[in-house]
C-alpha cells in the first residue's frame, strides 16, 4: 500500500505516487460515475493500481491509499 494523490488536468485524471515520483495520466478508471468511483486504475505507462471503490465521486485532488494490482489486498 502506498499513499497516492489523484488530481485532474486538462487531459483527464492524473495519478501521483510521491514515493516514486511517479506522475502519470490515468488511461482508465474502473468505476468513474457519480455514485461509484474507484477500483482498478490503468496508467499511461501500463502499470495498474487498485484503490477502494467510493460511493460518490470525490472532490479532486484527493489523497488515497493504493496497492499494485498484483499485490493481494
Amino acid at each position, binding site marked *: 500500500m502506498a499513499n497516492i494523490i489523484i488530481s485532474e488536468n486538462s487531459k483527464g485524471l492524473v495519478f501521483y505516487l510521491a514515493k516514486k515520483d511517479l506522475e502519470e495520466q490515468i488511461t482508465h478508471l474502473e468505476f468513474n460515475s457519480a455514485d461509484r468511483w474507484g477500483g482498478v486504475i490503468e496508467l499511461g505507462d501500463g502499470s495498474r493500481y487498485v484503490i477502494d471503490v467510493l460511493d460518490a465521486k470525490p*472532490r479532486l485532488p484527493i489523497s488515497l491509499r493504493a496497492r499494485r494490482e498484483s499485490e493481494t489486498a
Partner: protein
Amino acid sequence: MATTKAETQALIDEVLQVYPEKARKVRAKHVAPNDPSLEKSKGCITSNRKSLPGVMTVRGCAYAGSKGVVWGPIKDMIHISHGPVGCGQYSRAGRRNYYTGTTGVDSFGTLNFTSDFQEKDVVFGGDKKLVKLLEEANQLFPLVKGFSVQSECPIGLIGDDIEAVARKSTVDLGKPVIAVRCEGFRGVSQSLGHHIANDALRDHVLGNRDDEEFPTTPYDVAIIGDYNIGGDAWSSRILLEEIGLRVVAQWSGDGTLAEMERTTKVKLNLVHCYRSMNYISRFMEEKYEIPWMEYNFFGPSKTEESLRAIAARFDETIQAKAEEVIARYRAQWQPVIDKYKPRLAGKKVMLYVGGLRPRHVIGAYEDLGMEVIGAGYEFAHNDDYDRTLKDLKEATLLYDDASAYELEEFVKRLKPDLVGSGIKEKYVFHKMGVAFRQMHSWDYSGPYHGFDGFAIFARDMDMAVNSPVWSQLKAPWLADADAPEAAVVNG
C-alpha cells in the same frame, strides 16, 4: 555542437572506465546522453539513489535541506541547529537569503543558534539543554515569533524526544516551537530534508490562522520555492505586483511566520522551485483547493512566457497589464542582450546545480546566444528530469549526482567556456583554467530573477567568460613550449 548520442555515450564510457566494474554499472545509469523526444526520464537516466561509497559526491544532507533551504530563510523565527556546533556554523549565512529587518532584533536569518552538543549531552540526552536554550533565546530576543528545532544527526541516534520538548515549550513560551526531524542521515540527499521540512510546515504552520479574518482580493498569490538568493524573490515580486497581483506570502525567502500561516487564503500558488516545495503545493491544492503552477523567471524569454501564463489564470485586466509590463521591460532588457550577446554568443556552458536551476537557467543562457552542453542535478528526482529533457538538445550530456572526478573529466573533454556549479567545484575549475560562476549563491552577486536580474546575470556571465585572466594562464617562459595544455591543467 552537432554531437550524436553515440559520441556522447562513447565519452561517458571512457570516463567511467576507471571505476571498478560494480561501481561502473551503478554510475552508468546516472550518466546519459539526452533524448528530448522522451516524455519520461525513466529509461534515460536514474536519479534519487544513494551515492556510492568511495565516490566523491557533492550532495548535502537532510538537515541542510530543511534548515539551510526551507526553514532557514523564515526571518522572524529562530532556527536552532540542534546538535553539535559544526553543522550550523559551517553553513551559516552561506546561502545568501536576503531579508529586510534588523538582525538580532526582529530578524535572525544570518545568526547561528545551536545547542552545541558535548559528549555529556550525547550520553545523557540533550532535552534539558534544549528547554533551557529555548528559554534563554526567547529572553534575549523577545521579538522572535517562534522557534524551529532542526535536528542534526546525533539527535536521531540518541533518541531524544524533541517533540515533547517542543510541545511543552510552545505552552511555556506562548510561541510556536516546532520540532523538525531532519537528521542528516535520513534519505539520500538534501531532498528528503525538503520533504520533511514541508511536512513540518504543513503540520505546524499552515492552517494556524485559518479562523482568523483576513481581507482577501481575487488577485492574491503566494511565491513558493523562492529563497531570495541575492534578492531573487524581490525582483520576482516586483513583476507580479506590476501586473496587478497581490503577493501575500513568500516561501520562504524574506518570509515571515505570519505570512506563511496566511497562505491558505491565496487564489494561486506560484511555484519556482518545484523540487523543494511541490509537497506543500500539492497539499494546499487538496486541502484548500488552491491550484499551483510552475513558472520560470530566468531570462527575458522565459520571464515573458511565465508572466503570460500566470496572467492567463486571472481576468483580462491582469492580462492587459501583463502585456503592458512585458512591452515596457523590453526597452530595458533589449539593450542588455544587444550589449552582451555579441560577446557571449556561441559560448558553451556546463551546469551542475541543485533542484531547479539546471533546467530553469537554460533559457537565460540561450537568450544570450550561449549553449548548454551538459547539465546535471545533485539531488533531483525523476520528475525533475522529466521536465529537463525537453529543454535540452539531443545528445546533451546529462549527469545525475556526478562525482568530483566525473565533472573534472567531462569538463576536460567537452571544454566548455563556462562552468556553473557550487563553491566546492569553483576553484578546481579555476585552476583548470575554465571560467566559473557559482550557480547556487550567484557568487556574491544577484538577483538573477526577472528582468532586473537578467541584466546582472548577463554582466556576471560576461565578466566570467571574457575576463582577461584566461589569456594570462600560460607562464611567459612556456609561451613557445609545445605542451601548454598540461601546464595549465595541473595548476
